[in-house]
């Protein structure tokens, strides 16, 4: 199956026309770990910037949509989050003209940081017939295509159960085409879609017919439907 017209997967990002979409960065995760007594050094932002740099070498997109959960903490903004999110914005502005923040369930207190760089936060963002939303809640109205994050889809193979691979899922939700973005967070792989244990209200139905695109290495690899992988 080919991706719908105008869509393209570049590493962990999805491109629609001249808009790049990434999801679930969860910056500030290390501070949260420190608070819990896990005293490991931070390297998340460094990895994210490196990966974004690779993506921007392959695209001329003018706009980036961060599809929810840019920060990890639900509550207040940690020092690390302040610092790193601003660093990220500043970096992105050297590459695109516009940054759009779509609100995720972790982003309750994002406004003060966004305001620093005059960035708007929106519940969802619409271009043509494509709606980009985080996915923890259902939208009031739908369009032909929906792009969500939130689920952090990944997949593991019976031949190598200990490793997970980040993937995009593409399928049908009601009458719309639904894209699910992998998480952009370099620390975690995500949740195994074969375990069928989803949080999002979008994924309460059977998803056996969803198409899987795995991103490992340069090009996305199409793996067919989830039900095919189950039989592998």
């Amino acid at each position: 199956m080919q991706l719908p017209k105008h869509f393209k997967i570049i590493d962990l990002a999805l491109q629609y026309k001249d808009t790049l979409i990434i999801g679930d960065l969860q910056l500030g995760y290390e501070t949260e770990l420190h608070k819990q007594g896990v005293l490991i050094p931070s390297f998340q932002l460094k990895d994210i910037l490196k990966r974004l740099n690779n993506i921007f070498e392959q695209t001329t997109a003018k706009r980036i949509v961060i599809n929810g959960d840019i920060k990890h903490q639900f509550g207040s903004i940690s020092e690390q989050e302040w610092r790193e999110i601003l660093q990220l914005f500043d970096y992105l502005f050297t590459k695109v003209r516009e940054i759009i923040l779509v609100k995720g369930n972790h982003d309750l207190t994002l406004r003060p940081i966004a305001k620093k760089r005059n960035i708007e936060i929106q519940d969802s963002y619409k271009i043509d017939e494509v709606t980009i939303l985080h996915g923890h809640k259902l939208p009031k109205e739908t369009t032909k295509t929906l792009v969500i994050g939130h689920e952090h889809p990944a997949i593991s193979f019976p031949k190598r159960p200990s490793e997970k691979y980040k993937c995009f899922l593409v399928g049908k939700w009601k009458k719309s085409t639904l894209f699910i973005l992998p998480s952009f967070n370099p620390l975690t792989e995500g949740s195994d879609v074969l375990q069928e244990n989803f949080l999002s209200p979008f994924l309460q139905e059977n998803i056996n017919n969803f198409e899987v695109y795995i991103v490992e290495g340069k090009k996305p690899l199409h793996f067919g439907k989830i039900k095919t992988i189950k039989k592998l």
Partner: protein
Amino acid sequence: MISIIKKPNTNEEIFSKLNPITSKWFKQKFGSFTDAQRYAILNIEKRENIFITSPTGSGKTLSAFSAILDHLITLSGKNKLENKVYAIYISPLKALTRDIEINLTGPLQEMEKIAGKEFGINLGVRTGDTTQYERQKMLKKPPHILITTPESLALMLSSMKFKELLRGAGWAILDEIHALAENKRGVHLSLSLERLQDISPKMARIGLSATVEPIEDLAHYLVGHGRICKVAQVKFAKKFDLQVISPLPDLIDATYGQMQRAQYKKLHELIDTHKTTLIFTNTRAGTERVVHDLKEMYPSKYIENIGAHHGSLSKRHRVNIETKLKEGKLKTVVCSTSLELGIDIGYIDLVICLGSPKSVARLLQRSGRSGHALHETVKARIVVLDRDDLVECSVLLKNSLARKIDTLHIPTNCLDVLAQQIYGLAVADRWNIKDIYALIKKSYCYQNLAYGDFLEIINYLAGNYGELEERYVFGKIWYDEETGEISKRGSQGRLIYMTNIGTIPDQTGVLVKTGDVAVGTLDENFLERIKKGDIFILGGSTYQFQFSRGMVAQVKAVPGKQPTVPSWYSEMLPLSYDLACSIQLFRRNIEDHFVNKKSKNETLDYIHEYLSVDENACKAIYNYFREQYLYVGLPHNQKMLVEFYQDDTINKKYVVFHSLYGRRVNDVLSRAIGYIIAKLQKRDVEIGIGDNGFYVASEKNIQVLRALEILKKEELGKIMKVAIEKTEVLKRRFRHCAGRALMILRQYKGQKKTVGKQQVSSMILMKAVKRISDDFCILKEARREVLEDLMDIENATKIVKKLKNGSIEVKQVHTTVPSPFALKLVTQGYTDILQMEDKVAFIRRMHKNVLAKIGKKHRLEE
């Protein structure tokens, strides 16, 4: 430095040296001294270090304490008893501390009666259960004899006030050394003892242990590097009645059902003809199953009088079982290994081991739980479950009767424990690191510690890793590189230390639920192994695994279904290397008989004489060996059979290595060889590991000979470092090490962290730590722990050497049906997959497979 005491003192010698009150009490109570006491009392009186090994129930407590009580009573008589701790008793078991207090209070009261006055000798117990109030009381009125655990001792050494009480102590008594020295708690204690010795230079050390080998190393462990120690080896006074029992005469032709019925019939018969029976099953799942099945098969016989005892059961349940057992209210108790050590459990006249106890020391320890009084007969039966078990247990029995105790492995240079102890030193005082290094090197476990490793730990503790701006978060100690001084840092330092101390990793039990109802807990190791749809036993019922999220596993009850996965992999006891070698030797002896065409009867007689097992067992062993011999030959200590087995019905090739060295050694050999093979063919390979051998399996042709050549040429340690790099076990052990080194804190800023959080972070942790350095000290320690403590790279290296110099010959054979010795291994399933392809290559190959499957349709859609 270590000298064995040849002759114990006589009763008269001891009586003449003791205080009249103590003397009179002993005369009245016992009339004479036990062997252990005759070795110990006068040496302890002289404040000499002494290591006493003796079987259980030989009056050990009084051996250790008599001289000390005598000394205190004399002081009391002269009114010279000071307000300080004279002796510190350390037990690995908290439950044992109360027992010791009771065992000392009784004699003291009786002696006071003889003396006609009170001595004013205080006993005190300090464990994790001691309340703040009790601790305060202890500070005001210190116990003359302090009874404690290794963890509480370390806490006291880092507390200003308690440390002062311990200063100038006369004796430290370590109980159950055999159970401590083989793990990191023992390593931790060895450093606490050096800290104690540092403030009590004249302190003598007394070690009590079950019979162990190598005795010099254990004595050395007790006293530390460069100190003198006397060793008293108290012989077994008890008579031993040990037997191997096979529930059926023929172990091979019986069906699973027949075998089960026969086994329970035998168990019931044994229980029924004895007063109280203690059964060891090796695993928690086994314990559950036996209790369940006995109740089901003999519903009228087992109701309230049977109990289960294992580590996953609540503490309240366990204590309840122990109490009932002590009170004689139970006919039988079934346990995993949990009642091997510990408190007096009352009258037991029979011990049953269901399946092999895997080591001589373990069998003797378990057997010693029966006939606890000094001169009673120890009675134990090993019920075997298959032919490998029969051979193993028969040789085990032979070695037990000959008292050929297996060698104990004492971990050394553990950097995580070191970090915790240095932190403890810095919390209490300002130190120069040179002095700390000198102190540490006195411990047996650190006598060879490299200064570079030590410095790395100091730097780690000082927080010198990660970005500069984060170091204030990581720093635990203040360290001045110029002067080499360290001390505590920040206001939280002491609290963090006090609330996170210890070496035992947190129980990482995963809650198992059907819907919202909790049905029990599962070991996290086990969870890593099972996949959706797998059926397993928990608490006597069968469940099918659905999925897990965080620390909850969702399952579905599937009553009556056959389990598809063996339970509790990780719990499997490894066969001791020494015992494995004995079995290999026995195999060779039998091969000699076959090669020299000795008659069947002659060989049977030989087996009977060599192993002293009954006629059925002899025949079963004979047949088993004969079949293997005629089919492909017998592997033994000079011949490693390498069996190429190909099952045509599945697309997989097996190579079975008949290397009977126990799974700790095979873990190393299989991973090293598997890794080399995987590298040669650039493909992942599957390995299956058992005590009797291992296999490597792959879809491709396996180049064994080339792999063996490479194995012989390269350094095993180097191969293994890479071979374990991606394993789950390294990740898990790293988390444990990070916990001990206080890089992951259980309690921090007043929050107690759930294990779930720790589990989520273990993979992330590995990634993060490799960013610091591939050789970050705590990661290095995790690798050491996996290779040296969990696995046995030392003996594996010896095997490779023997392969190299030809003293072990490799013989290749090809089969289409696995040979009798290989059957169990091949059918048990894989232990691990060694990943060789990188992620990208693997995913491309999987992609090709997908395309092959969906190709046609795929193109149509396009």
